């Protein structure tokens, strides 16, 4: 089976994404990167796939509230949130609606992130989700807690893990918050990149990598 990510963004190459693919979503602040990723996860949840969200910004309950509005009759036992905002300690909980939440001590706590993702994937698999989608919002926050080298390696290790788990991964980065070299390097850890820009008042995206040639810019 393959993943159809083309719901929010109609590129042919996104309709047929190989399990294990990891995609960088790059664009300026407030350009809808997270919204795009959550839309792609929601499509999966409607089909019964698992969804794992790793957040460095919004709280887990905010993520879940938003997610419920996206998916009717959401089966929350197949949703996991790894909340990295961090209060200095690690803990996990099961929400009243059944979602699994793991709290990491800080965005720089990579061990905690590893445990949270592992437990999240395990929970989802136990609840019948063999396939799933992952979103990390955002790598830019990670880059303020640790250096480029560590974030690059983190991306590579996460990509490898999702590859062997058969998931697809989406990772956002604020294209204006970092120098070109940083984006160039981080990009290398991924199979493809969705680039977003604001152009004359409209929001446009294009796809690089995944399947062949870069696409043209398209409004969405």
């Amino acid at each position: 089976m393959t993943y159809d990510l083309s719901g929010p963004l109609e590129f042919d190459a996104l309709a047929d994404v190989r399990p294990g693919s990891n995609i960088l979503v790059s664009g300026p602040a407030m350009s809808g990167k997270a919204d795009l990723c959550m839309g792609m996860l929601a499509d999966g949840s409607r089909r019964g796939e698992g969804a794992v969200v790793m957040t460095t910004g919004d709280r887990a309950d905010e993520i879940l509230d938003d997610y419920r509005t996206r998916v009717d009759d959401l089966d929350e036992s197949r949703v996991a949130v790894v909340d990295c905002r961090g209060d200095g300690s690690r803990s996990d909980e099961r929400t009243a609606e059944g979602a699994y939440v793991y709290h990491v001590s800080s965005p720089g706590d990579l061990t905690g992130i590893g445990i949270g993702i592992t437990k999240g994937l395990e929970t989802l698999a136990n609840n019948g989700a063999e396939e799933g989608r992952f979103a990390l919002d955002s790598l830019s926050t990670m880059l303020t807690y640790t250096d480029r080298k560590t974030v690059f390696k983190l991306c590579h290790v996460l990509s490898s893990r999702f590859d062997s788990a058969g998931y697809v991964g989406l990772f956002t980065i604020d294209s204006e918050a970092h120098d070109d070299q940083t984006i160039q390097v981080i990009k290398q850890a991924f199979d493809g990149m969705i680039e977003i820009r604001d152009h004359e008042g409209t929001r446009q995206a294009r796809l690089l990598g995944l399947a062949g040639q870069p696409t043209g810019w398209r409004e969405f």
Partner: protein
Amino acid sequence: MNAFTERSLGQSLPCRSKGVLDVGVGIVGDAGAVTGVKCSERLVDLVEQSLDAGDECGAVAFRQIRPAETPASEHQVAREEHPRSRVVETEVVVLVAGGVQGAVVVVAHGDCLTVPDSVVDEVVVGIEPPDVDVEGFDDGRDGTDVVGVRVRQDDCVESPRRVTAVVVSGRRRVTAVVVEATQLLANGGDGVEVVSRVDQDGSFAGDEKGVTGEHLSAGGEVRDHGGGEGGEGEPFSLPAGWRRPCAVDGSTITGGYWTHRAMWDENQPAGRVEMSDADRPVVLIVEDEPDVAETYRLWLDADYVVRMAHSGDEGLDELDESVDVVLLDRMMPGLSGDEVLERIRDRELDCRVAMVTAVEPDFDILEMGFDAYLCKPIKSDQLHETVENLIGRSEYDDLLQEYYSLVEKQATLEAAKSDAELTDNEEYGAVQERIDELQGDLSETLDGIDSDEDFIATLRGLNDFDE
């Protein structure tokens, strides 16, 4: 053809060290037993020269070649047998000279062999010899594939004969190749069979843990298995540069391997051909029960340099940069395993620590800073697997670090030069090529982070490094 000597099987074990044999050479002695050892290209050349010069000894050389150099389509069968594996093909060049009539190639650890039949009379693929408990040989792991290659006699009397076998490995690398020649003309006469066969009753196999005191004999003694039937007759004159095997104490023995001077470590008598200590990973066992510690040591001794400590304090004394893996008993009088671990981490030593515990722990154990755990009672194959896995993690970290450095370099070059300039830039091409290689290596190491423990421990390693 399917007869194996206790000696050749046993002696092949040291070659498994670190699981990497890029280039190896085995020498046929009068008893006809050959093994492979990790050595340099130069040594392969030496053997070839030795053969060209007409030395009356057989030799076997094998080389690891890159997967890209052979078409994958030829090995569909092997792929089907190892659906999850990435196929690595290794050309085993068997240089046979001096009257070697036949050779048996054994590849340990679940590898498959194919041999072009144009060059041999008989090829036996994938058969486990009925009179050998292969489980005992390879510590109960993936099993062992065997290929028999009977070289035409007339071919090898006149000139060295090349037999090329392609090893299709489910593992990253071919881990051991044993080639056993069945006959040497130099020994004179027909039917000089290989030395003592493995007993039909399977006594070679050892106990259920896969340990036999014989093939893991710790003292480095090369036992005489009566292999010198041929040698008992006409004295076989050694060509220049070759040395008759002798035991570690220097006494002469019959049978065993003949070694070339290029293999000699001047301080170490020849006889047991194996990787030098400097090439082998170091494992430190910290365990207060002497019997248990000794058992671990016996299991690991063939593949690793093993150090022992009987308490936490002793363990800290034994610890230095050369230690790769520590097996740490959690419950010890004096310093506990947890305390020892803490001090190891404080000293920022780059070693992996496996905790040996009586109770099955959770991921929490990984949070504490251990890299793996083993629950008592431990079996030989578990221990091997864990140590190998921990060494694999170190390899992964090193590869990832190199990968990152090259990606940085690539990005720097891309920023400084135009596309046209890059096309002609040699450095850029080399970086690109190495990046591609590393991507492959990384996805093969640790099976591309297939397990939860590897995943968490690798991320924790990034943290440690960062701090």
